[in-house]
């Protein structure tokens, strides 16, 4: 089994819907120590993805993800736009320009591309209470996973969820939440939670 363009569309559609459904919950988490707007920004990102997918023309998967990422970066409302844009563009970054059928090895490259692009723009590591708490374990689990593309996506989603859960125990090192130091223990990072939803959505769409 491989992932083609229709499958990528289904994955992104599913991820966008899952994010939109949970946006109120994301804002609620973010309002404790952040600006309280993560869910609003995530809704805008979700809406943009759902608008762009039907406009997918002749571009390859690589090129479409690149363009979608650039568009998402411009979504206003704090860092989530640039971060999600980088993550989405990263999914395509290590795919061949004309690659049309993605096998398990290609799916692993989607994850490693995602991480490489994010590491280019942030120094955040696991434990800093950011999206990386979900992303890094997801990518590592994907690299170690065996089986079909669907198996790899499932394993990555589960690892992202465990990472987001673990972020509850971390002290915030980035953004506005940082000034709350130890008070942030007990609340997960809103970005890590949304990242886990994004990966769960991708897996469910397949």
């Amino acid at each position, binding site marked *: 089994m491989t992932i083609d363009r229709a499958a990528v569309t289904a994955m992104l559609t599913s991820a966008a819907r899952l994010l939109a459904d949970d946006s109120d919950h994301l804002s609620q988490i973010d309002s404790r120590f952040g*600006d309280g707007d993560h869910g609003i920004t995530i809704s805008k990102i979700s809406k943009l993805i759902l608008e762009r997918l039907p406009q997918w023309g002749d571009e390859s998967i690589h090129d479409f993800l690149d363009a979608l990422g650039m568009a998402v*970066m*411009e979504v*206003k409302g*704090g*860092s989530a736009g640039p971060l999600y844009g980088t993550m989405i563009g990263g999914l395509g970054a290590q795919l061949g320009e004309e690659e049309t059928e993605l096998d398990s090895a290609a799916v692993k490259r989607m994850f490693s591309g995602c991480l490489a692009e994010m590491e280019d*723009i942030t120094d955040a590591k696991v434990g800093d209470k950011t999206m990386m708490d979900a992303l890094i374990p997801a990518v590592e689990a994907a690299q170690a996973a065996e089986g079909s593309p669907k198996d790899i996506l499932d394993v990555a989603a589960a690892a992202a969820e465990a990472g987001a859960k673990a972020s509850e125990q971390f002290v915030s090192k980035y*953004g506005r939440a940082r000034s709350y130091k130890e008070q942030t223990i007990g609340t997960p990072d809103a970005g890590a939670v949304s990242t886990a939803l994004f990966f769960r959505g991708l897996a469910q769409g397949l």
Partner: protein
Amino acid sequence: MKMKKFINAPDALTDELLDGLVAANRGLIHRGEENMIINNALDNVDRVTIVTQGGSGHEPAISGFVGEGMVDISVVGDVFAAPGPQACVDAIKLADKGKGVLYIVLNHAGDMLTGNLTMKQCKKLGLNVVKVVTQEDVSNAPRENAEDRRGLVGCIPTYKIAGAAAAEGKSLEEVAAIAQRFADNMATLAVAVRGATHPSTGAALADLGEDDMEIGMGQHGEGGGGRQPMRSADETAEIMVNALLKDIGIQSGEKVMLIINGSGATTLMEQLIIYRRCEQILNEKGIEIVANYVGELLTVQEQAGFQMFMARMDDELLRLWNAPCRTPYLTK
């Protein structure tokens, strides 16, 4: 508590304030695509140009300093939020008049992300741009960890110095080196006595109670005493001046720039009382104030408090600070 602000729709705040800024300064600036504020003279310049970015809600910063001798294009995000990288790349392309672009970014998480993404894209496109980061808040990290320091009001004199260096016809490398030298020798400490409300959401940004003030954000306690009972103007000035002198390592006989920047709701009366005491202290120590500013440059809505900024000056930096400029909120 209900927010008592003269606004229309929360979503339209940035758009409407930029319209107002341009309407009040049509001879100096105009609006571009994607929330850009552009120097009217930009089309006809033959020099290094200056681009910056940042959220709205800090007026007159940052767009109030667009004009000849300071910033050529500012790219504005939402309230307190950085703009996206594509808008910044577009601004850099638009600003480049063949001599390159100096791109000044304040150290805040969102701005730094956009800054990194913008530089990545500029590199891909082969654009001639150098980024300088202002990070001078002494309260949230020691000087050795400058990457952890927030960018406060120091961006404004950095724009002035860089803009003047560009106007002198210096190369991009020279303009960047001068801006960096100034940025490396500056420090800011902020004190707040009452927090602001977010103009879009109405949420309180800080709660300092009835009797307290907070010097710095007190994150590691390096900068001042952190949260403490309210003190007099003179006592507050002494704590802050001494923290800044210590941080930059200014010695007797040196020359400094001193800025008292009101955060939005502290009166000019109070700012002047503070400035007066700062000058007395520096005089006693044999340190000369050769450049100054007292008033609002970068605010945080109706936050009460001020930022005290100090920088080590030399003859070249002083010449550049005193050089002509014409912007909505600073003219020399």
